C-alpha cells in the first residue's frame, strides 16, 4: 500500500464522478423518490411503512453501488487504462481499495440524504440512532462495491456485467427478510439466507429499528458485513492479473 497512490486514485475516481453530474443527481434523488413511492403504496406513515423503509435504506446503496462499481471496473478493463495501470507502481490492492473508499464516500452522501428523507418526509421511526443507521447503510453500500469489483472479474462485456445483478444481487434481496421474515422461512432457505451477507446488513438495520441501544447482535452483524467487504476486495485483488494472454 502506497498512501500517495491510494489517495491520488481515490481523488481520481471522485473527480470522474464529479464530471458526471447526471449520475450524481440520480444517486441522490432516486432513493428518495422510490421511498416516496413506498410511503404512498402502504398508505402513509405507519409501522409497516417504517419497517419496509428501514430495509430499503440498506437495499438502495447495495444495488446501486454494485452496478456502478462493476461497470466502472469493466470500463477500466476495456479502455486499456487497467493494462496501463498495471505497468505503473500502483498495487492491485491500492486500486481496489481506492474504489472502495471513493464509492464509500459517495454512498455516505447518498445514505445521509436517503435517511433524512425517510425520517423527515416519510415518518420513519427507529428506536436506535440515525447515525448508526447511516453507518450500516454505508457498510451495505461497501458490500455492493466489494461484490461488484469481484464480479467484474468474471464479466467480459457490459451485457454480462449487468446480468450479474439477477445472479448475485436479487437472490440476496429475496432472502434477506424483506418479503418473508427469515425465521418463517423453510429450514434450507434459512440456511441459504445465513450465508448471504445482505441478510446480516438487513438484520443490523432491524436491530437499530427495534432497540434504543446497539445490541450484541448488531455488532456481530456489522463484523460479518465488514469481513465480507474486506474479503470481497481482497479476492478481487487476487483475481486481478498484471499479465494477460
Amino acid at each position: 500500500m502506497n498512501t500517495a497512490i491510494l489517495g491520488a486514485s481515490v481523488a481520481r475516481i471522485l473527480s470522474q464522478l464529479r464530471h458526471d453530474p447526471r449520475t450524481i443527481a440520480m444517486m441522490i434523488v432516486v432513493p428518495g423518490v422510490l421511498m416516496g413511492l413506498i410511503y404512498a403504496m402502504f398508505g402513509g406513515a405507519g409501522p409497516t411503512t417504517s419497517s419496509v423503509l428501514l430495509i430499503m435504506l440498506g437495499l438502495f446503496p447495495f444495488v446501486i453501488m454494485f452496478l456502478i462499481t462493476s461497470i466502472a471496473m469493466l470500463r477500466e478493463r476495456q479502455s486499456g487504462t487497467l493494462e496501463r495501470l498495471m505497468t505503473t507502481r500502483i498495487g492491485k490492492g491500492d486500486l481496489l481499495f481506492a474504489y472502495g473508499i471513493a464509492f464509500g464516500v459517495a454512498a455516505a452522501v447518498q445514505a445521509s440524504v436517503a435517511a433524512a428523507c425517510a425520517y423527515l418526509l416519510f415518518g420513519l421511526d427507529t428506536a436506535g440512532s440515525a447515525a448508526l443507521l447511516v453507518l450500516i447503510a454505508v457498510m451495505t453500500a461497501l458490500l455492493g462495491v466489494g461484490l461488484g469489483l469481484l464480479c467484474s472479474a468474471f464479466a467480459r462485456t457490459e451485457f454480462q456485467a449487468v446480468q450479474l445483478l439477477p445472479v448475485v444481487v436479487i437472490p440476496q434481496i429475496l432472502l434477506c427478510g424483506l418479503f418473508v421474515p427469515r425465521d418463517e422461512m423453510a429450514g434450507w432457505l434459512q440456511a441459504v439466507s445465513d450465508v448471504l451477507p445482505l441478510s446480516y446488513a438487513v438484520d443490523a438495520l432491524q436491530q437499530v429499528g427495534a432497540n434504543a441501544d446497539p445490541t450484541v447482535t448488531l455488532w456481530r452483524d456489522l463484523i460479518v458485513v465488514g469481513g465480507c467487504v474486506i474479503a470481497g476486495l481482497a479476492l478481487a485483488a487476487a483475481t486481478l492479473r498484471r499479465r494477460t494472454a
Partner: protein
Amino acid sequence: MDDAIIVTDLVVERGMTTVLDHLSCRMPAGRITGLLGPSGAGKTTLIRAVVGVQFVRSGTVTVLGRPAGSRDLRARVGYVTQAPSVYSDLTVLENARYFATLAGADAAAARRAVDEVGLKSSRDQLVGTLSGGQWSRASLACAIVGDPDLLVLDEPTVGQDPVLREELWASFRQRADNGTTVLVSSHVMDEANRCDRLLLIRGGGLLADDTPGEVKRRAGTTDLDQAFLELIRRSASGADERDVNPAIDDSGGAHRLRHPRTHNPDTHQQDSGDSPVRTRRAAS
C-alpha cells in the same frame, strides 16, 4: 553500447496461434528503435512483453537489466497503448496529474508533459470531448510525465497531422539524446527513417534488425518502402541468408499455415492499408 532491452527466444501463444515464434532481438539504450511489420505481425504483443503485461510461453525479456515487468521497473517505464488509454471523463491535466503521481512526479511535471504534447490550450478540457489525435496525445503526455528511462509507444502518431508528427518526433529525439531509450511501433515509412534502428517483424519472427540505411542498402534501394517489399519477398522465398528466424525460411506454404493472418487475434492492430500488408499480397 549497452542494450536496454534484450529479448531471447521469446514465444507467445494465444489460443492455437503462435504470435511470437522464438524471437530474439536487442534494442540499444539511448536510441530510438522502430518496430515495423504488417498488421498482426506481433508488434503489439512484443511491446506488451517488453512492458511486462503479456503472458509469455517461454523465453526471456530483459529490460534495463531486469526481467520485464519487475516491480522496480514500474517507475522507469512509460507506456502508451495503441488505444489511447486515458480516462475520458477527466480533463487532460487531471489525467496527467494522476499518472504523474503514479510515476512519482509532481503537478509541475504534469503541466510540462501536457505542454510538450501540444495540448496546453485544451488542458482543462475533458478528454472525451477531444479529437482522436488530441486524445492520443493526452495518452502520450501520461507516459512521458515521469521522464521514464524507457518510453514504449505503440503507434503514437496515428491520426496526427504532419506538423504535429514533426513536433512529436522532435521530442522523442530530444528524449533519446538525453539518454531515454525509445521503442516505437509504426507503419509509416517516413517515420521509420527517423529511427536509429529498425526491427522488422513478420509472422512472429524477426525479418530485419538494422539501421534504416543498412536495411535500404541490403535491399538495393533508396526507398524504405521498396526495401521492406524486397526483404519480405526474399524471406518468403527463403533467399535472404541473414534472416535471423529459421521458421521464416520455411517454404511460403508452411509459413502461411502457421500464421493464418485472418485468425490472428491481435486485434489491436488497425494499421490497414500499410505497405507491408500490400507487400504480403504481392509476394504470395
